[in-house]
């Protein structure tokens, strides 16, 4: 057999569990999907209109590598206002092609081969592969259902080795909707300081917390700004997934290193997406709040209905996912999701797609129209009754 022409470190990365599932769903008709990790809203009209206007004006060229200065200034103002931490738009902010690129840049900028990255599970599907692709070693810490999947600082201590360099956080969390309480977040900050770690904090869902539960950025805690890269974007809060636009804020030396990779691989984020992002920051608050309120109502409906159907489900404080506990059915997450799909044509994502600690749970997205959610819930109730 001839040797593979695909590089080992790429070949050995497993395909995403979500992608597997996606292909099964694609092959079926009339499926109601609660498996979608993006807003069902179209980008608010004023944002689209603003991008159209910029095209009409002929703004079609490259921007600065770090992103248009006007946008970086707006990001600095927004982050200061909503996260209570100030960044210099000149050298502490980089505009990227979604948070995904920012994560990749940060990991590649920080890791030497064999460096360990600690992150909490269940988590977004790309963390472990991104760490591997950057030459790092992923070290998962399981969070617990009894904590509503928030992270205990004490659990982190067990993971520390001399090789640990980076701690990755994602609150509110995809897929569990977990939001960190401030007290525990402070302990995590102290842990990062004690072990001299850099924290990558993916706060893409930070606008989406409900019932006045505040989002706290770890970057805003004392002593943390100099060791934190705050990752944020526009996809979730402003329903702009397809624009592929995000940003990172952090210490100038790390941003400079990230910029080096970005300038050679990407050059700059698309200019029309940058224009749209600027509009979102300057005038998007109202449309964001309208969408958030709609998510809140759907979350209430889906959680109440699942519990009534006998599927225990905590009321998550953020993001747009519920993570119900299906252990009572005696099925594995994957079997549950597959059978539900086959028998009732409802797509949910097995918890194991987000790491082994997701076993016993499934992710249902409520970024789906209310009437679809209602039908889906009825079918799920029927499914577990049989």
């Amino acid at each position, binding site marked *: 057999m001839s040797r593979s022409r695909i590089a080992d470190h790429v070949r050995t990365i497993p395909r995403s569990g979500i992608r597997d599932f996606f292909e099964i769903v694609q092959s079926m008709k009339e499926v109601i999907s609660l498996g*979608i990790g993006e807003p069902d809203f179209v980008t608010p009209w004023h944002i689209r209109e603003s991008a159209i206007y910029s095209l009409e004006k002929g703004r079609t060229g490259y921007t600065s590598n770090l992103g248009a200065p006007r946008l970086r200034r707006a990001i600095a103002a927004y982050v200061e206002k909503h996260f209570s931490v100030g960044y210099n738009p000149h050298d502490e902010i980089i505009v990227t092609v979604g948070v995904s690129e920012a994560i990749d840049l940060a990991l590649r900028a920080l890791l030497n081969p064999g460096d360990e990255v600690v992150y909490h599970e269940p988590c977004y599907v790309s963390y472990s592969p991104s760490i591997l692709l950057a030459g790092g070693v992923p070290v998962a810490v399981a969070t617990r259902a009894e904590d509503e999947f928030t992270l205990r600082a004490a659990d982190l201590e067990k993971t520390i080795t001399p090789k640990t360099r980076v701690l990755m956080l994602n609150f509110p969390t995809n897929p569990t909707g977990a939001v960190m309480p401030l007290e525990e977040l402070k302990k995590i900050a102290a842990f990062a300081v004690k072990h001299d770690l850099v924290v990558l904090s993916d706060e893409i869902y930070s606008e989406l917390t409900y019932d006045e539960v505040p989002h706290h950025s770890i970057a805003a805690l004392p002593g943390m700004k100099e060791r934190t890269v705050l990752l944020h974007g526009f996809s979730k809060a402003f329903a702009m997934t397809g624009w592929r636009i995000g940003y990172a804020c952090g210490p100038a030396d790390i941003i400079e290193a990230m910029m080096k990779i970005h300038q050679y691989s990407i050059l700059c984020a698309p200019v029309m997406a940058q224009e749209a992002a600027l509009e979102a920051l300057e005038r998007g608050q109202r449309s964001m709040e309208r969408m958030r309120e709609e998510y809140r109502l759907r979350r209430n409906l889906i959680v109440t209905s699942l519990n009534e159907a006998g599927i225990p489900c905590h009321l998550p404080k953020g993001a747009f996912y519920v993570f119900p506990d299906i252990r009572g059915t005696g099925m594995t997450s994957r079997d549950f999701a597959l059978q539900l799909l086959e028998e009732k044509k409802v797509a949910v994502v097995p918890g194991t797609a987000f790491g082994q600690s997701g076993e016993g749970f499934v992710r249902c997205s409520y970024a789906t129209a209310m009437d679809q959610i209602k039908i889906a819930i009825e079918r799920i109730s029927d499914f577990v009754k049989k």
Partner: protein
Amino acid sequence: MDSLIRLLRQNSATPRAELARQLGVSEAELAAKIEKLEKDGVILGYQAVINREKWDPDAVTAVIEVRVTPEREGGFDRIANRIARFEEVEGVYLMSGGHDLLVVVEGRTLREVASFVAEKLSTIDAVQSCATHFRLKTYKENGRVHTAEEAPERLAVTP
């Protein structure tokens, strides 16, 4: 309460049980809230939003700018109320700017609206002048866009 009003404005036909679940309250609590809103006159009624061009394409809607001589006592209120009582009148608003009252009139035909303006509205003593504008097409009404946007395609499962 704001969420409840917003939901009812969006679709007042939503079953109460479902409203209660969305708002995270019991059905009894919800019923009490709605009853209070009705009693306090916050909620005045529940109506269907109709696409007139589909239901009755010949019907006519006119927006009439009316200049009025205000009265020494009561200002515009008495005259506005008097106009509001005609059943052809859908809406009456006191406006800032070049005219005083904005009157929205609906009729089955152009002639019907014209005769209302000529015989009823402009003959009221306090009315100085009327400028009548007929609606040609509706694009959005009560927050509903009349030409539905096509739902964009989304991938069935995404991370």
